[in-house]
């Protein structure tokens, strides 16, 4: 399903932070993980992914480092920082409250069956 870009814009960073909070990943790995863990509902365009990663890196919410993979290739791995963890916790709390509020508005229609 193609979502309104404005709808996704606000949650893309928190999604990335959540995925990275579970372990460091490189760009391709991260985009695959987002699709898998959201049940293919959420997809991050390739043109959005890397600018988003660099912006999060600039805000010091994640950090990037070139490392060798198991297959011997060099990849840039991203991991969450402590500041990123704090930000993630904050935004998760806000999303939870938002979801609760929206559920009330829509009479529970937002809760998946």
């Amino acid at each position: 399903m193609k979502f309104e870009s404005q709808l996704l814009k606000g949650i893309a960073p928190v999604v990335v932070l959540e995925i990275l909070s579970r372990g460091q990943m490189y760009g391709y790995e991260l985009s695959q993980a987002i699709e898998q863990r959201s049940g293919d509902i959420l997809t991050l365009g390739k043109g959005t992914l890397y600018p988003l990663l660099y912006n999060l890196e600039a805000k010091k919410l994640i950090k990037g480092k070139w490392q060798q993979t198991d297959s011997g290739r060099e990849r840039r791995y991203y991991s969450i920082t402590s500041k990123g963890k704090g930000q993630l916790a904050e935004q998760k709390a806000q999303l939870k409250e938002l979801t609760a509020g929206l559920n009330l508005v829509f009479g529970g229609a937002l809760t998946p069956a």
Partner: protein
Amino acid sequence: MYRLVAYLGILASIILGGMLGGILDFIAIKLACGRLGAHCCISIIYLLVGIVLGAFLGGVLAIVHVRRYTREQKEKKELAKYLASIPENAGNLIKSIIRKMRYRKKVQDDVMAELAAHFEDELKDCKTNDERQRKAQRLIEDFGDVNLLAVLLRRAKKRCRPLWRTVVAKTFQTIGVLILCFIVYCVYISLGKPTIAVNYLEEVTRLAHPVADESLNAAILYQKAIDAYNEPPLVKYETGTKEKNLLDAIQDKKWVTELTKEELASLKQWSSDNADSIELFRQASEKPHCWWKRQAKDKKDNNLLHVLMPELKSLRDITKMMVWQAKLKAYDGHPKEAFDDLLVCYRAGRHLKGPRLLIEQLVGMAIQAMAVKDMRMILCNQKVDSQSLKNLQAKLEDLAAEDTYVMSYEVEKFCALDFVQRCYTDNGRGSGHMIPGQLKSLDSDFAELVPDSKNAVLNYSLTLAMALVSANRSKMSREFEKIYSTAQEWAAKTPWQLHEENVDFEMGLDNWSSFKKVKYWPVQMLTPAMAKVSAIAYRIKTDTYATLAIIAISRYKQDKGEFPSTLDDLIQAGYLKQLPVDPWSDKPLVYKRTANGFMLYGVGSNFKDDGGQVVRDNKGKIKPYADEGDWVFWPVPK
């Protein structure tokens, strides 16, 4: 092989750097010597320093470049490996994004590697080439607009840079903007044009030109006298002394008896050859007015700073001739004719005074000074009868009473205002900026600041710098007005009055901060030494009245058989109308009877009565109007 080339490259850079360093050093030393005007030789040591520095810098740059090149080559190889493992269209997309990103090479390479790795990972499961191509094409479409992506990547990477790098980048950007603004400003001020609103040359002529008929103008006859004038001859000495111009030969001599027979003969011949000129000069001196039709070097521009006054030197030379003629006449027993000649000179000097350029006024005063000095010289060396003295005194008193002894700065101020209108733009609100190109076209006053170099860039840079630092038109004009009006105010006061008021003769110019001096550099360049110039006018006045007193004393002595006890005796006996006042004390000149006669002197510019002591130079010659000691009018100093 690569190593060999790299080492050869470094060696070549060291050699070239050394050569370039030496050449630049040589040029810098030459320029420095030229600007400073110092006689300096190109020291081998300086050149060696330049060569060593150049070689060192060349070597360092070469090594840095080689290392950077080696690193880049290594990174390119690695990147090439990445791009080689993905389809060509994907590789082209990535290259296009990186190219449009326009950022630091290291960051571009990082992003390129990351995007290439992403493509590699996305395509790793494709089994056939076709499948790879199709998937690659889908990925390319998924990346979206290349330009937008490049912008987003660039922005994001810029945010990643450390604070110090941001500060440095912003600083350079700011400097770049400031430099651009500066260049635009330089172009703006260079393109300015002056508006010549006032013809100051005409104003000067109008001031000197009274409402009078041309027949009353002495300048016409003076010009005829100058045209008829013959230059002094060369004196040929029988003793084998080298030939000399007559005026040069006799310039240090005061009286006829000091002349050699060759000099005396040349003097008489010269005087005879100039009989017509002398007669015209005499007729001119009797005219009531004198005004010259002034012209500038370039008749089209009427620049007051370029005004021609060729007559001044000739008038001085004619005066020198006439004073010697007077001394010859006095020596030959014709004092009345001698004094008549000197009075002609005194009257001629008056014609150059009043609202004129300072140089004219100074020449006029110099002519008058020659006349009164030689009146005293004649009185010192010749016995003159009482009636001749009485006639001389009466005529000199009349001339002194009509004369002005106050320096006029009105016309001199016009020079400053003409400079302002020619070197500044006029924005219609009384202000404007200095125009660099105009400075070079002005008088040779500026030649020492703007050297006549063949290097147009250097010339332009210097005049541009001068224009950039100077004050705007309204401030500059106000400063000139203030200085000249103060100078005119002071000119009306005697040196003693100025001394009592503790006046700062430099008008605080010495106390100006360096910044103000630089900002108002034309003021320092164009304004004369006001105190010294105004004092000259008072010197002539003192000279004249001292001479009148000496004439009166001589008459008194001849009539009464003894010198007066005080100067008041002269007044009471009717030999003198007024006491001669010393402007350096605002009291009468000091008169003392001595064993040999009398002494008459002024206290001089130290305002102290030194008892008539004069200052001599290291050759024993009296320094007239020295800063220390007294100014003695009688006895005539030997």
